[in-house]
């Protein structure tokens, strides 16, 4: 700050606090809804202050019947499915992008640029624009209702490949020269020098990709018909539909809360890596 203006400072904090309230309000209301019983959640006006039923709702949602009147999978299984999908997508993307960036930066081989452009094209083909034919491919390969079908079609990544390419380009040439003098082969160099050097980049990318994987919606919606493969994010939509018949908002919002907590926890606890990952991948 360049000058002392008590009034402006007051206004600053006032506006920021208002902004925080506006941003946090939907999440607060979700939390409040998850702490009341069903009876209270059907009376107008709805509460704005937490009640005492959080543990009842949590245990009913996680291990009990969940939403009555629907025949879905138990919520703990959905959480597990989401976790498996998010981890497979994020780790898979990181692994194959590291390998292809390594090949493109450190090897001269025929069709190198062809490979590069083919990876680049994936940037221009989000799932949303090729849903039907991709669905057919996955169905023909027999990957419907499987973890493989949920994750593999999403793990090609141009952004991750570009990011690792940038990182590798900043590694000094002397590293490779000295490694070769010491008799290290390509894979040895990759494991012992490149991987440790890009550790923070990998972590930052993991934060972003974990959120990306956890929040997938359209793709799981298309390829899972078996309720035991439902992910938690998908289940919210089914519950909203059920809510039109029997409004059990306390259970629905508890489920929503459970679906939000893992990615929010990742963002808040690894905030520095998150910001780094966000700014690196989008340039």
């Amino acid at each position, binding site marked *: *700050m*360049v*000058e002392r203006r008590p009034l402006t400072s007051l206004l*600053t*904090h006032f*506006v*920021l606090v208002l902004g925080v309230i506006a941003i*946090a309000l*939907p999440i607060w*209301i*979700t939390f409040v*809804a998850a702490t009341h019983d069903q009876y209270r959640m059907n009376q*107008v*006006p*709805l509460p704005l202050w937490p009640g005492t039923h959080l543990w009842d709702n949590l245990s009913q949602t996680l291990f009990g019947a969940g939403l009555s009147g629907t025949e879905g999978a138990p919520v703990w299984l959905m959480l597990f499915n989401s976790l498996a999908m998010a981890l497979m997508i994020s780790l898979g993307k990181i692994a*194959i992008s590291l*390998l*292809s960036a*390594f*090949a493109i*930066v*450190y*090897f*001269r081989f025929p069709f*190198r640029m062809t490979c590069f452009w083919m990876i680049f094209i*994936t940037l*221009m*083909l989000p799932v*949303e*624009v*090729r*849903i*039907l*034919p*991709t669905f057919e*491919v996955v169905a023909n390969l027999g990957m419907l209702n499987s973890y493989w079908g949920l994750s593999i*079609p999403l793990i*090609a990544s141009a952004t991750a490949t570009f990011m690792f*390419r940038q990182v590798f*380009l900043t590694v000094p*040439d002397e590293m*490779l*020269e000295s490694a070769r003098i010491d008799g290290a082969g*390509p894979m040895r160099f990759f494991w012992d020098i490149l991987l440790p050097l890009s550790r923070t980049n990998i972590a930052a990318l993991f934060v972003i990709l974990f*959120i990306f994987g956890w*929040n997938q*919606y*359209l793709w799981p919606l298309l390829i899972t018909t078996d309720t035991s493969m439902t992910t938690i*994010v998908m289940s*919210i*939509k089914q519950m909203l539909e059920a809510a039109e018949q029997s409004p059990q*908002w306390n259970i*629905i919002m508890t489920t*929503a809360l459970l679906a*939000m907590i893992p*990615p*929010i926890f*990742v*963002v808040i606890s690894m905030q520095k890596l998150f910001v780094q990952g966000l700014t690196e991948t*989008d340039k």
Partner: protein
Amino acid sequence: MLKRVHFPSSPLPYLLVAPQLAITLVFFIWPASQAMYQSFLIEDAFGLGSEFVWFENFEVLWEDQHYLDAFWRTAIFSLLVAALSMGFALVLAGFAQRVVRGAMAYRTLLIWPYAVAPVLAGALWVFMFNPTLGIFPYFLDFVGIDWNHYLNGNQAMALVVMAAAWKQVAYNFLFYLAAMQSIPNSVIEAAAIDGAGPGRRFFNIILPLISPTTFFLLVINMVYAFFETFGIIHAVTQGGPGTSTTILVYKVFNDGFVGLDLGGSAAQSVVLMVLVIAMTVVQFRYVERKVEY
């Protein structure tokens, strides 16, 4: 982009790029070319055979009033989302960069909607605006507004715009804050010595200096509103009431998976592909080239 010092050619690099290329070919390039091929076909009413018709699907699309409406609706929707979330983020970042102590605390409190899935964001907003139970319709009733987004198309549009913008504020805030913090302090101080107050400095110094960020965010937000808001629409309105919130991505899904119009859906996919490619080109051409101060 190749290292000056590199490994000699061997089968190894092919093995290294093989997994990425295999997935790209099987799940990206092949389906995209299938979509392109199908967009030239019309299936007969029983799905028994199909006829190659060149651009007829596109001509039908171009004359279809529903499709043209969806196009305009998508444009308006994405502009509203971009304007609302960027405006909100700009104001917050403008104030947050003034705070010396506690700026990081505000950042922590403002970034979490980024982590919320679009469909969840939709669920939260649909709950808050539930016509019979929701908090906001209850208060809106006092000022004489009868809220029912199941019946009123404009209210439904307002609701999806708010939900989509809310989720994106965090992202815009982070980029605006970073851009403002990278402005040299001496520039701000010089303006202050010349007698410019905080408001004047914001509009005459900070805003022009962060214009590259504004442009970058505009592109990113348009792409977000075009393609990533499917979950919000699906959870909140399912394109309704009528077709008042049917945006292009939702229409592709709806015509293809619900209406089973393969040729028409494929033609729409191709149009969307062209749009993504155009946006990506804009993003790379203008965003990479940093505007000089």
